[in-house]
């Protein structure tokens, strides 16, 4: 453990430095023993504009999936002189991307890190109210975050007049009632207003008119967790952490048939192969065939891509997205058609139903894939699937849900077309799968 003014070399994996092997939570005292809340203290001694510039120059890219510069996002909030009054920051902790569990890991173990990051963001944009929008099923996170907020409030870290300039901050935990679309930032804002979580038209962007029509910044939980360290150590330290073009570290995760599924903080730009090696490699008797690099809405990559660096630019150049950085592995015992059907079923069900390509397109795709998996498919179905991927693609829908859903499908058709063809030729699933769970029934079950 470092104490006080640690040297910049000492901390190379800042986000996980407090995470204990026994799974217990970091207390306020433990957090503060290791420069905890000193990043916030430093920010509070600077002007808000200086904090925005500090984070902008560190080039912290959004860890929720889109990779947009956090500092730049803040800079679109009009200055207080121009637009006085209430403004908000929201932590997007509605982690519901299939295969993603990194924010849960950070919040369960080290809630104060998130609270400090959110407080820094709030100060930067001069928001006196900050919300943590937490997904419904994270009961342990909710308990630990609320305790940590209460601790910070009792210690005078949050609350009234927390710096000499008289800045005050109220932090509120909102637990969602469960819906994937709430992760879309404008849908999240609608949900926080107590409405159905349909996305909003942009412009106006939330930074100008967001929650209750006020300037609002929404940042992902992992993104916010980086802020205390960037404030404390500075941008040069942050830049040195990354291996390639991107700065800092990343929480990478692996799930699927590996020996040791989990997540780890690593320098951003660590190779895919190294991350899978940390997961203990594939289980006995199964071979890796491909992987979704960053959650259910990213394009498949294959064994040919194992040496790629997991950073925004490299994965994009290979035709996919780093997304959330938590990969899902496809092995040779798993039916790729069934896996894509499972993903499409998720997106079809979680579609908010607002725009037609998503509301109608995804169930249409689900039906074709169900037929294919059951051995009732035809060759023409494959062309139709590709056509449908275009119809629900970027530019044709109101938000990114349906274009994201198309990504694993279109790439599966590119890399694993033979698997689809085998289903058609053999008239059944070569893996012996049949969509045993009746989709209509599932839908009804959900509508409770």
């Amino acid at each position: 453990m470092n104490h006080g003014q640690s040297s910049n070399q000492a901390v190379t994996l800042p986000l996980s430095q407090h995470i204990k092997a026994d799974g217990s939570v970091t207390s306020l005292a433990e957090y503060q023993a290791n420069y905890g809340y000193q990043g916030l203290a430093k920010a509070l001694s600077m002007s808000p504009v200086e904090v925005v510039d500090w984070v902008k120059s560190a080039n912290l890219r959004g860890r929720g999936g889109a990779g947009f510069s956090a500092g730049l996002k803040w800079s679109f909030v009009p200055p207080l002189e121009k637009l006085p009054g209430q403004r908000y920051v929201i932590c997007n902790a509605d982690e519901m991307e299939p295969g993603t569990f990194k924010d849960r890991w950070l919040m369960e173990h080290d809630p104060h890190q998130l609270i400090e990051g959110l407080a820094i963001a709030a100060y930067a944009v001069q928001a006196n109210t900050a919300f943590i929008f937490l997904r419904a099923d994270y009961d342990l996170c909710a308990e630990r975050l609320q305790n940590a907020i209460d601790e910070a409030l009792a210690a005078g870290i949050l609350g009234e007049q927390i710096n000499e300039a008289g800045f005050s901050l109220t932090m509120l935990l909102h637990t969602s009632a469960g819906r994937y679309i709430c992760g879309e930032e404008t849908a999240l804002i609608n949900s926080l207003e107590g409405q159905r979580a349909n996305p909003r038209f942009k412009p106006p962007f939330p930074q100008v008119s967001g929650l209750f029509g006020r300037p609002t910044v929404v940042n992902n939980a992992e993104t916010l967790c980086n802020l205390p360290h960037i404030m404390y150590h500075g941008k040069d330290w942050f830049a040195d952490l990354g291996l390639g073009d991107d700065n800092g570290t990343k929480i990478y995760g692996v799930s699927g048939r590996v020996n040791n599924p989990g997540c780890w903080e690593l320098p951003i730009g660590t190779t895919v192969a190294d991350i899978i090696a940390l997961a203990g490699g594939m289980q006995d008797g199964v071979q890796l065939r491909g992987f979704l690099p960053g959650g259910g809405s990213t394009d498949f990559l294959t064994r040919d891509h194992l040496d790629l660096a997991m950073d925004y630019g490299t994965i994009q150049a290979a035709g996919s997205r780093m997304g959330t950085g938590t990969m899902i592995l496809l092995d040779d015992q798993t039916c790729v058609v069934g896996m894509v059907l499972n993903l499409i079923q998720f997106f079809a069900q979680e579609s908010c139903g607002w725009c037609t390509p998503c509301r109608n397109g995804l169930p249409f795709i689900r039906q074709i894939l169900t037929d294919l998996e059951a051995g009732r498919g035809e060759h023409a179905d494959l062309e139709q699937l590709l056509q449908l991927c275009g119809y629900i693609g970027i530019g044709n829908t109101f938000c990114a849900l349906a274009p994201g859903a198309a990504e694993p499908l279109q790439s599966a058709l590119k890399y694993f077309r033979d698997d689809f063809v085998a289903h058609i030729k053999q008239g059944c699933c070569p893996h012996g799968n049949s969509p045993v769970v009746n989709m209509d029934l599932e839908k009804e079950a959900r509508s409770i």
Partner: protein
Amino acid sequence: MTPIIATDAAAHCADWRLQIEPLNEYEETAIAAEITHYPQPQAATIEALKIVQQQQGWVSDGKIKAIAQRLHMSPDEVDSVATFYNKIYRQPVGTTVISLCDSVSCWIMGYQGLAQALTQELNIALGETTADGAVTILPTPCLGACDHAPVAMVGDQRAHKLTPSSLIELARLAQEQPL
């Protein structure tokens, strides 16, 4: 094509002619506290629904009317929010809800076998409740615990690395609990 919209409409035929079920003292106090967090009372809709559900296990039409009155909304507005979210139940559920994750990582790790074993053991289909009112099985989207797949929530407890036999064991324990 799957008639999704028709299914949804059939499942929620709220009847607003039914009598209002007034909020109890706890619900009143808890909802009033939530309203103070927001500049307009409607923003507390989701919290209000969750508070009521915490009390009676689900949200009845009468309670929807009571929430609507409290938050200055129409019952239909409140219902449109209630039916949007996965975790608000508009029908009675069992004492223990087993939310079985059916998303991709859990599917790879054996969801289908779990669903089959559990529905056979309890002799109900997904979405149904046992005759004694003890257990409801709901398939649920990704629970964010893919490192422990396959997973389920049994009540508010997350169960990790399930096998058909460990899941059946948990279901039996839930059935033995007093209703």
